[in-house]
C-alpha cells in the first residue's frame, strides 16, 4: 500500500472563508470491509503478519507462560466472570496460536502440543470477536504480567492485520475513513467548524467578565495550538467554551486551526499505521504553518497519547513541544495564573476516572489531581486509581463498534462499582470516549452522577479578574 503521508497533497495556503478547502486526502477512500473472513482475506493476513512483528509484539506473543496472573486485572474478567473466554491470555491466544503455528520451533513438529493452530476461518472469527470486541487495549493486564506482555501493542498488531485484510468493524472503519477523507473523524466541513467556533466565542463573550475573551482561529505565532475532539464542535460545544474560558482567564496565548484541529486518531484502534501517521502529520503541519511553540491536546484519552507519545515515533521526531490541556491547567494553577473559588462545588462529591491512555499509557497521573484539588473540597479517589485504574470499557475504539455494545456495557460493571463506592455525584474524566461510556454505565447501573471534564469543572470556579 502506498504511504498515505506521501500520496496526500496537503494544502498549505490560508483558508478562504468563501470557499472552504478540501481537507483530508485529495481522493476519497472507502476501505473495503468484509462481512466475513474469505480465503483471500486469510491469505492477506498470512502475508501481513511478519510486518507487524516488532520486538515488543514478538516478545509478547512468544513470552506468555500461561500463568494467569493477568486474569484478575482485566475489566472484562472482573465484570463478566462467568465468561472464561474473556481472560486476557485466552483472548491473546487466539492470535498467539496462529503466531506459534508460523514461528514456534516446537510447533513445526507438534503444533497441538504447544497449542498452535493454522489460521482458519474459525480461528480468525475468534480473533475478531475477542480482539475487537473483547479487549480495549487498556494494558491493565500488562501492568500485572510478570513477563511484561504488552497487550496494547500485541492486540493492535492483530487488529492491523485483520484490518488490512478487510475484517474490521464497519463503524470504526467509517470513522477512520471520515478522518482520511475530510481531515476530521466526523467529517465536519471547514465552514461549519469556523461558524461553530465563532458562535462559541460569542457565547463565551456573553458571559459576565468574559467580554474580551476570544477563541482565535489560525492565529500565527500563538504559543499553544489547541486541538479538539470532533465530538466537541458537534455535540459538546460547552467543553470548548469552558476550555477557552480557562485559557483566556489565565492569559494563555492559544489558537485553533480552522483546517486540521482533530486530535483523535482512530487508526490507533484499527491498527493501520499509515493512516495513524497521516493524521499525525496533518497536525504536525498545522503547528508548522502557525508557528506555535506547543501542540496541545484537549481532553481526549487516545488523542492525547497519539499526540504526546506516538506522533514523534510515527514521524521520526517533532521540532515543537507537546502537552495537553490537563497538564497546562495544572501548571496554570501551580503558577497562580488561575484563581479559583472552590465553594461553588461544595454541594457535590467528586471522583476522577483515569483514562487508560492518559494515565497508564500516557503518564498524566498527578496533574488532574492538582486541578481537582484546587477546584473542589470534596474529592474521593476510586479504589483503583492512576495507573491502576480499571478501563471504563469504552477504550480501544469500543464505542465505535456497536456490534459489541452489550458486552461493552457489561464490561463497565467493575467501574460502575468503583464509582458507587466513592459515593460521588460527579465523575470527572478527561476523555470523550470515557465521557460517553461513563454516562452509559451510570445510567445502566443506576448511578446518579454527572459526568464532566476538567475544563467544565474549572469553568464555574474561575474567579475572573481584570
Amino acid at each position, binding site marked *: 500500500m502506498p504511504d498515505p503521508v506521501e500520496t496526500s497533497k496537503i494544502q498549505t495556503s490560508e483558508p478562504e472563508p468563501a470557499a472552504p478547502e478540501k481537507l483530508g486526502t485529495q481522493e476519497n477512500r472507502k476501505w473495503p470491509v468484509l462481512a466475513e473472513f474469505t480465503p483471500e482475506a486469510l491469505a492477506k493476513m498470512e502475508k501481513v503478519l511478519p510486518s507487524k512483528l516488532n*520486538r515488543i509484539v514478538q516478545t509478547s506473543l512468544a513470552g506468555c507462560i500461561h500463568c494467569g496472573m493477568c486474569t*484478575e*486485572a482485566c475489566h472484562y474478567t472482573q465484570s463478566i466472570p462467568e465468561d472464561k473466554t474473556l481472560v486476557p491470555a485466552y483472548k491473546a491466544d487466539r492470535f498467539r496460536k496462529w503466531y506459534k503455528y508460523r514461528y514456534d520451533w516446537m510447533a513445526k513438529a507438534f503444533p497441538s502440543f504447544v497449542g498452535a493452530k493454522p489460521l482458519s476461518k474459525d480461528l480468525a472469527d475468534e480473533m475478531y470477536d475477542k480482539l475487537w470486541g473483547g479487549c480495549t487495549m487498556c494494558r491493565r493486564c500488562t501492568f500485572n504480567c510478570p513477563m511484561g506482555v504488552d497487550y496494547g501493542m500485541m492486540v493492535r498488531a492483530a487488529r492491523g492485520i485483520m484490518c488490512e485484510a478487510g475484517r474490521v468493524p464497519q463503524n470504526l472503519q467509517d470513522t477512520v475513513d471520515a478522518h482520511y477523507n475530510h481531515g476530521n473523524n466526523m467529517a465536519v466541513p471547514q465552514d461549519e467548524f469556523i461558524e461553530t467556533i465563532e458562535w462559541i466565542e460569542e457565547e463565551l463573550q456573553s458571559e459576565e467578565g468574559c467580554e474580551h475573551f476570544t477563541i482565535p482561529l489560525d492565529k500565527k505565532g500563538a504559543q499553544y495550538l489547541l486541538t479538539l475532539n470532533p465530538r466537541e464542535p458537534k455535540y459538546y460545544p460547552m467543553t470548548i467554551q469552558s476550555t477557552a474560558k480557562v485559557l483566556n482567564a489565565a492569559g494563555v496565548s492559544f489558537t485553533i486551526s480552522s483546517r486540521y484541529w482533530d486530535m483523535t486518531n482512530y487508526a490507533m484502534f484499527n491498527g493501520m499505521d499509515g493512516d495513524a501517521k497521516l493524521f499525525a502529520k496533518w497536525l504536525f503541519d498545522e503547528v508548522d504553518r502557525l508557528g506555535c511553540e506547543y501542540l496541545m491536546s484537549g481532553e481526549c484519552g487516545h488523542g492525547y497519547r497519539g499526540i504526546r507519545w506516538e506522533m514523534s515515533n510515527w514521524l521520526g521526531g517533532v521540532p515543537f513541544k507537546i502537552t495537553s490541556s490537563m497538564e497546562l491547567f495544572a501548571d496554570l494553577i501551580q503558577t497562580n495564573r488561575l484563581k479559583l473559588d472552590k465553594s461553588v462545588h461544595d454541594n457535590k462529591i467528586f471522583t476522577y476516572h483515569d483514562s487508560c491512555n492518559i494515565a497508564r499509557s500516557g503518564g498524566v497521573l498527578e496533574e488532574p489531581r492538582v486541578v481537582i484539588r484546587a477546584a473542589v473540597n470534596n474529592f474521593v479517589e476510586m479504589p483503583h486509581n492512576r495507573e491502576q485504574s480499571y478501563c471504563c470499557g469504552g477504550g480501544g475504539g469500543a464505542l465505535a463498534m456497536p456490534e459489541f455494545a452489550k458486552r461493552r456495557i457489561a464490561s463497565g460493571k467493575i467501574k460502575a462499582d468503583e464509582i458507587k463506592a466513592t459515593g460521588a455525584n460527579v465523575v470527572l474524566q478527561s476523555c470523550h470516549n470515557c465521557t460517553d461510556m461513563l454516562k452509559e454505565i451510570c445510567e445502566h447501573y443506576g448511578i446518579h452522577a454527572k459526568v464532566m471534564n476538567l475544563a467544565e469543572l474549572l469553568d464555574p470556579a474561575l474567579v475572573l479578574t481584570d
Partner: protein
Amino acid sequence: MENKVSYALYVLQEPVQYIALTFMALMYAIKIYQLMKKPGPPEKAELKGDRYAGALHSLANVLRPWGMESTRSHPYFYVEFLIFHIAVALTIGSTFFIPLTPWLMTPLVSKVIMVFMGLAFLIGLRRIYRRITVPEIRIISSPDDFFAITLMTVFFAVGFVTMWLWIQGKPETGWMWLFFLMVTFFLIYVPFSKISHYVLYPFGRVMYGQVFGGRGILNRNAR
C-alpha cells in the same frame, strides 16, 4: 564431598552435559538473534521519566511483590514463585557443582538444596492441580504447559532423592543417573519449550520498563 564415579557416569556428567549445554546456548543465541533483528520500541517523544531507570525498575520487579496488584493480592503465589525459581537455580547449580566442585556440596549445602527441591516438588504438584481445576487456567493451558510443569515436578522429586543419597555419601546411584539423564534432556528440550521463557523474560521486562519508565509512569517515587 567426593564425586568418585564410574567412567560412564563421568561421561554423562561432563562431556555429554557440555555438548547439550552448547546446543542449548546455540538455540538461545538464534532465538535472541531473531528477536534483536526486529525493530525495538522507539521513543522519540520528549521523555517524562527515565527509560533506563524504568528498565532497571522493571527488571527488579521480581523482588517487589508489592509492585504488581497480581502479586500484592496473592502473596502466596509470589512466595511459591520465589521458592520454585530459587529451587530451579539451585538445581541447575548442583548439576555443575556435583561433577566440577563436589567439595562445595557439603551436607549443609546439599540439605538446603534438598529442602528447596522438596518444596518446589510440592509447589509443582499444586500448580498441576491448579492448572487442572481452575477453569480460567485450564482454558489457557496447552499440553506443553502441563508437560513442562510435570517434568519440573518429577525432576525436583528425582533431585530430592538424589541429593539425599549424595548426603549419604553415594555419588553413583540409579537416581544420580536418572537426574543427569533428565538434565541432558532438559538442555536439549528446553529451548523448544515454554520453559525457555527466562530467555525472553529480560527482553519483556526491559522493554516494558523502557516504555512506561520513559513516560513517567514507573518508578515515580524515586523521581
